[in-house]
Structure formats: C-alpha cells, structure tokens
C-alpha cells in the first residue's frame, strides 16, 4: 500500500464518521439497513450471536453472497476475514470490497501474526481493547480501529471498558513529557512516531468506532459520549423484534447522541431487544483473540 493509498483509506473511514455500520447476512437485510440509514454494511454469513451459538470454526463468507450484497446497495460494503488469514483478505480484495474487517469474531487463522495490511490496496479495520493493540494494528496497516467489545452478546460492558481504556491511555500519553514517550513506545511495542502522534493530537491517527454489544439507541449514545466516532451494530438489529425501527432509531441516536429528549423518543416502542448474554455466562471471550 502506498502512502497515498493509506491516506485515501483513512479518508474513507472519515466519511463513515457519525454513522452506523450494520451486520447483514442477505441482500434483503442489506436493503433494510440502507433504507434505515446505515452508512455501510458488513456482509457476513452468520451474525456474531449465531456464530457464538453454532460454535465450531467460523470463516470468511462465500464471495457470491458478498457480491449479492454489493449489488443490492449503493453504500460501502465491508466483509470479515480471519485474523492472520491473508489469503482470505486477498480474495476479498479481488472482489473489490470497500473495507476488510480482520476480525476476532471469526476463528483466528494465525495465533501469532496479524495480516501485513501494508501489502493491500483495500482498507482494513481492526479491533482493539487498548491503545497498544490499536497502534500495533495501525502499524500493520489498519486505517480504521474499532473496540472489540464482546460480539454477539448484546452486552455493552466490554465495549465500554475498551473505549474507556483507550481514552484513558490517550490522556496519559497526551500529558507525558517528551522523554517518557520513548519508553511508552517500547512498552507498547509500537514505533515512536505513532506514540508521538497520540501525544501531539490527543487522538488515534485513524478513525475509532465502537463495536461489540450495541443493542439499543441508548447503548449507541453511550459509546458516542465516551468518544466513539461512529458505531458498528452486529447482532443487535437483526436479532431484535423490529429490525427496521431499531436500526433507524440507532442511526438517529448516533447523530443526536447528547440530546436526551430525542433519545427518549427514539427508545420508545422498539419491540423486543436481542436477548443478551452476560459476560460471566459466556465461555468464549472473542475479545481475547489477536493482541
């Protein structure tokens, strides 16, 4: 990836800001998501809640299914590949996907190395629990970051933990003396230049979204107020009673995330939310995949 291409890929993430990216499994769901105001869709065969329920190895989706979704909508289409599975990423690039999510939701293909994303022209988004993971992924070529949260649970606690951790570390680095930055770079196992950027600008060098466990307009507003620049919603929409209405409400909640009066109206009569699972009740913590 040339430096200019990396800029263009970061730029696309900038255009997604203030928006909601929705998981969809069929062209019909993709159309519902687009009509509800999604700024992009994530095409995958099974949403995280079903992946969790089914167990077993979870892989990249069938390219034919992804192409069907690309044809169904005019907004950007993203798709997931397994952590470290650069061949899956090559396939997604070949079908001109707009963004690849190297995702812990799928079974990792490599327990040591992430994909060298600098070798690709298409952009990558990666999950991160803290600033170290985020900067390591950016150094590998990711042009967008999201919290890992805990996918497929409808439980927001992990996304909150990851976002708070991210900003607490950004504030800490922001207030450091110049000479402390070198040691921080060493501790985080990332280049000094990335730490220096965070120190100077008090933010990540790329756009940062919330993901994992968002189920209600209030969840989305919470993440935005905690500093997210936009929101991914996975199982929360199509595992709920009224996907159209819930999707549209979450989109509006992200635009007016500080206006409690609007949020109250949006939260009314949404039907049943997805059935959540508490983090103590789950055996598989996807967020622990890929550090």
């Amino acid at each position: 990836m040339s430096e200019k291409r990396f800029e263009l890929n970061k730029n696309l993430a900038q255009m997604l800001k203030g928006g909601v990216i929705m998981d969809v499994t069929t062209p019909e769901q993709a159309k519902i998501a687009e009509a509800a105001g999604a700024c992009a869709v994530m095409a995958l065969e099974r949403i995280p809640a079903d992946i969790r329920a089914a167990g077993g190895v979870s892989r990249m989706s069938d390219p034919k299914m992804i192409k069907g979704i690309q044809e169904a909508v005019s907004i950007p289409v993203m798709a997931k590949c397994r952590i470290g599975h650069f061949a899956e990423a090559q396939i997604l690039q070949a079908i001109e996907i707009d963004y690849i999510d190297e995702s812990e939701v799928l079974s990792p293909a490599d327990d040591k190395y992430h994909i060298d994303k600098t070798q690709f022209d298409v952009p990558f988004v990666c999950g991160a629990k803290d600033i170290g993971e985020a900067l390591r992924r950016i150094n590998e070529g990711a042009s967008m970051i999201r919290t890992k949260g805990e996918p497929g649970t409808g439980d927001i606690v992990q996304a909150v933990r990851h976002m708070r951790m991210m900003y607490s570390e950004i504030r800490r680095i922001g207030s450091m003396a110049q000479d402390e930055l070198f040691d921080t770079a060493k501790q985080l196992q990332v280049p000094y230049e990335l730490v220096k950027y965070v120190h100077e600008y008090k933010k990540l060098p790329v756009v940062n979204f919330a993901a994992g466990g968002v189920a209600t307009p209030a969840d989305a507003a919470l993440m935005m107020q905690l500093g997210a620049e936009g929101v991914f919603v996975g199982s929360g929409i199509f595992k709920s009673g009224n996907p159209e209405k819930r999707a549209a409400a979450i989109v509006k909640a992200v635009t007016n995330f500080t206006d409690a009066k609007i949020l109250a109206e949006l939260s009314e009569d949404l039907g049943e939310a997805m059935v959540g699972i508490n983090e103590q009740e789950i055996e598989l913590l996807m967020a622990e995949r890929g550090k």
Partner: protein
Amino acid sequence: MRIAVLALQGAFIEHEQMLSKLGVPSVEIRQKRDLNQSFDGLIIPGGESTVQGKLMRELELYDPLKKMIQAGLPVFGTCAGLLLLAKKIQNDDRIHFSTMDIVAVRNAYGRQLGSFYTEEFFKGIGKIPMTFIRAPYIEDVFGEAQPLATVNNHIVAARHNKQLATAFHPELNNDLSVHQYFLDMIKS
C-alpha cells in the same frame, strides 16, 4: 461571519477545522432547533448522501433548509453534499434539495479501489490538491451552473449563483483555497 455545517453524518468536523483555520466560527446543524441560530452560509459535508438525505427529512430540516437555499443562502456541498444539491442524479432515483443545475453520477469512480488523489486547476484559484473518495462527478451542467474544474474530462466542481459543489474533498487536504473561495462568494 458565521457558517453552519450540516452535522448529521460524515466528515463535518474537518470542515469546521478548515473554517477555524480561516478564522471563521461555525455552528453545527443536527436538528431543527439548531436553525434558530444566525449564519451566513451552509456547508454540506461528505459522508453518505442516502444517510444525510434520510436524516434531513426525518429531523425536519429538509423543508426549511431548501427554502433558505432557494432564497439565496450561500451553500457549499462536497461529495455527498454535491449529490444533495444536484437537480438530477443519473444512477439514483433519490433526489434531495434539487437546487443546483447539475446532473451528477453517484459512485462514479466505482468502489474504494477507485478512490484517488490528484492535482488539477480550479477556475479562479489555480492548481489545487483534490482527494476523491468513492466520489461522484458532474456529467453535465445546464441553466445557470458553470463548471469550475475538470479531471479526466469529467466536471468535478461547479457553481450556480451562490451554490458551490465539489466532487472532491478540499477539507481533507491542508489547502484552504476552496473554503476561502466559498467565503469570498458569500461576501460578493
């Protein structure tokens, strides 16, 4: 002078930063009551035109903003903003403000792999950086609209009285000249 920035979705903060570098304060328009503030021009940022178009209607911003633009409020649309101003979009039935005499083509350069950077001439300014992200272009101008810039034989910037539209994103580069052009347009 004060400029309103439509802040429903997309890269609106980048526009606010450009204005701030030019010493001009901005206000964000997220809902109807935000229109009660006074402002001298409006910027419609890049993002997804489908999302902004939908939110604008549902948050009851569409009618009042359209009336203001028709009454002569200077407006500057980038990328999705260009699509919201166009009277016709070749490959999309959804039209929005429909106040500018241009025919646009949505996602005209294809998917993200078609996004590109170039430097070209802009009428009245000179050569400037241009970043195109899943961008539209202008297939045709008619009536009172005039082309301002062309890249590979496609019009990428146009003006129609006090309406300015670019297919590229001046807010993503450090060059302030297109924003300055818009401010001068307001003053003239």
